[in-house]
């Protein structure tokens, strides 16, 4: 009876795990090797800890795209024949799915497909920005922004001559917003990442957004890291623009999203010119069509939108609350177990409180250069990213040229963290004596 009780309690612990990772992993062809005949392979099984750069894709996503190509691929819009209609239907259905996923008030109208989050932000800069920003205006960013939310503004500022201002961070990797009211003076647009791809910090933007709105500024949220791992609600976030990418949330490459309030989209001039985005073209002018198509010149990434739709189906089946809970548990476990094992030899950048972070851990270990660390880890099948993570200004603030970043997603579990830990120890003993 006692042993039975014990088993029960183990079972219930297991059941308490928010996700059944071993079930999930079966949907990801890449992970078959770990479950399969490892000994036959000369390579160690993959421990994929680089989802913040790009996630893996489940079979469901790949087969949604494949089935599209195999049965009903045709160019969207304007096609009269049934296959083209079906292609259009699936494409537009994906659009509503994406819009509903982030709780857009008007999912079908406010969801613009781009090729990636970077293009989404550039779209805002080149249309809203070019139309509204004047010399003397201010765009307020943060020093933890990804280059995707810096360079478009730097380019436009060089052209127009407005000012760029930045929110600083604390040593714990949190935004400094004590002096926000003052910082907001003259600001027309606030651009903030919802989650830092280096520090993991989650930025609560809704109060920042309220203050920004009171000051007459619009708010652009970079959701590239946040949307894949958190329940996202643009209405609760209180932002005006939201940009994110498909490939970081189980979707394919080649697809990104810009959500924006309808009123803003309608005011904005078109972005790229060409087919699909016009109502009429004459030799001396043209009439843009309705939103969201006004911003989608040329043949859109059709299969990719459908793939992203399938990714969202997959995530919603799991439940984004569960995804968040899972990442939180895993990050807590990683922070605890790594700290316990390596003590002061290991530093984790960003907030000490796991609940303030997403699934990203930037590590400094024993002074070993991040690229060397990643190289050694790769030998053990552990995939982490080393570099500046497209956040050079943040690297300067942290005083490092680069970091080694491990990131988790729905297919990672405690075992992956243990493998990471073991591989770190190996790197430590290889390079150990180099530390002075």
């Amino acid at each position, binding site marked *: 009876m006692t042993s039975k009780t014990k088993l029960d309690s183990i079972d219930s612990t297991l059941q308490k795990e928010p996700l059944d990772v071993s079930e999930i992993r079966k949907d990801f062809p890449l992970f078959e090797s770990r479950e399969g005949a490892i000994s036959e392979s000369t390579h160690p099984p993959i421990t994929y800890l680089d989802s913040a750069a790009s996630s893996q894709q489940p079979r469901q996503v790949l087969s949604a795209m494949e089935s599209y190509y195999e049965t009903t691929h045709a160019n969207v819009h*304007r096609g009269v024949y049934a296959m083209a*209609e*079906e292609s*259009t*239907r699936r494409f*537009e259905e994906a659009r509503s799915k994406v819009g509903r996923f982030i709780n857009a008030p008007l999912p079908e109208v406010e969801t613009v497909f781009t090729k990636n989050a970077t293009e989404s932000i550039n779209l805002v800069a080149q249309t809203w920005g070019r139309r509204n920003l004047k010399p003397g205006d201010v765009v307020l960013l943060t020093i933890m922004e990804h280059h995707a939310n810096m360079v478009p503004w730097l380019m436009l500022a060089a052209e127009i001559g407005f000012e760029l201002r930045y929110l600083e961070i604390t040593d714990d990797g949190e935004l400094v917003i004590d002096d926000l009211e003052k910082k907001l003076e003259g600001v027309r647009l606030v651009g903030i990442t919802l989650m830092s791809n280096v520090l993991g910090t989650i930025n609560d933007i809704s109060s920042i957004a309220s203050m920004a709105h009171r000051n007459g500024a619009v708010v652009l949220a970079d959701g590239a890291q946040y949307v894949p791992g958190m329940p996202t609600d643009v209405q609760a976030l209180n932002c005006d623009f939201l940009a994110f990418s498909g490939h970081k949330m189980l979707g394919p490459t080649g697809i990104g999203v810009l959500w924006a309030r309808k009123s803003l989209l309608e005011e904005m001039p078109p972005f790229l010119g060409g087919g699909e985005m016009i*109502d*009429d073209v004459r030799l001396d002018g043209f009439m843009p069509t309705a939103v969201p198509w006004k911003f989608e010149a040329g043949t859109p990434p059709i299969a990719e939108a459908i793939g992203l739709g399938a990714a969202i189906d997959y995530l919603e089946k799991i439940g984004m609350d569960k995804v968040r809970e899972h990442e939180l548990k895993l990050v807590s476990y990683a922070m605890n177990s790594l700290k316990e094992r390596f003590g002061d030899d290991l530093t984790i950048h960003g907030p000490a409180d796991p609940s303030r972070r997403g699934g990203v851990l930037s590590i400094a270990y024993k002074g070993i250069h991040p690229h060397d660390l990643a190289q050694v880890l790769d030998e053990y099948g552990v995939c982490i990213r080393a570099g500046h993570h497209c956040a050079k200004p943040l690297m300067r603030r942290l005083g490092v040229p680069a970091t080694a970043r491990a990131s988790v997603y729905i297919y990672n579990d405690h075992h992956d963290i243990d493998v990471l830990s073991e591989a770190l120890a190996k790197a430590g003993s290889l390079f150990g004596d180099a530390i002075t």
Partner: protein
Amino acid sequence: MSGLEDLYREIILDHYRNPRNRGELDTPPAKRIEAFNPLCGDEVVVYLNVEDDKIADIKIAGQGCSISQSSASLMSQAVKGKDISAARELIRSFKAMMSIHESKLESTSSEELDEDQQVEDVVVNPEAMGELAALQGVVKFPVRIKCATLSWNALAQGLDEIEEEANSSK
């Protein structure tokens, strides 16, 4: 071929071949309204003569596909001589016949449509629409719905403008 026969019913082809009320009216007194279908570039032009809150005369010009042309022709026949309020009622019914299906067709593939539910949802009885019911088959071809509603949108816009002008000159 059943879908196709549903779309191109004999009445539709007849109105396409022999459009009723084809032509123009002098403006003023008539009102001229253009409706443009950006999907194909076709255009329906509606000329409206309203006297004593009645559609005294109506003419159709422009060019387009068999659906847009026959729909305009059928419409002209149906509203000519009618009170504005009756015409508006007809516009509502016609658009309901098209749009209920339209929104359904957009969110679910046509095979998944629940026929019973459709009938229940329809606010208007197609039987009450006379010859116009012939256009019901269009809803199975979502891209062609715009063809069918083009002239009706023009009519609605024309009536709006006429009533607005009447109100502001009061």
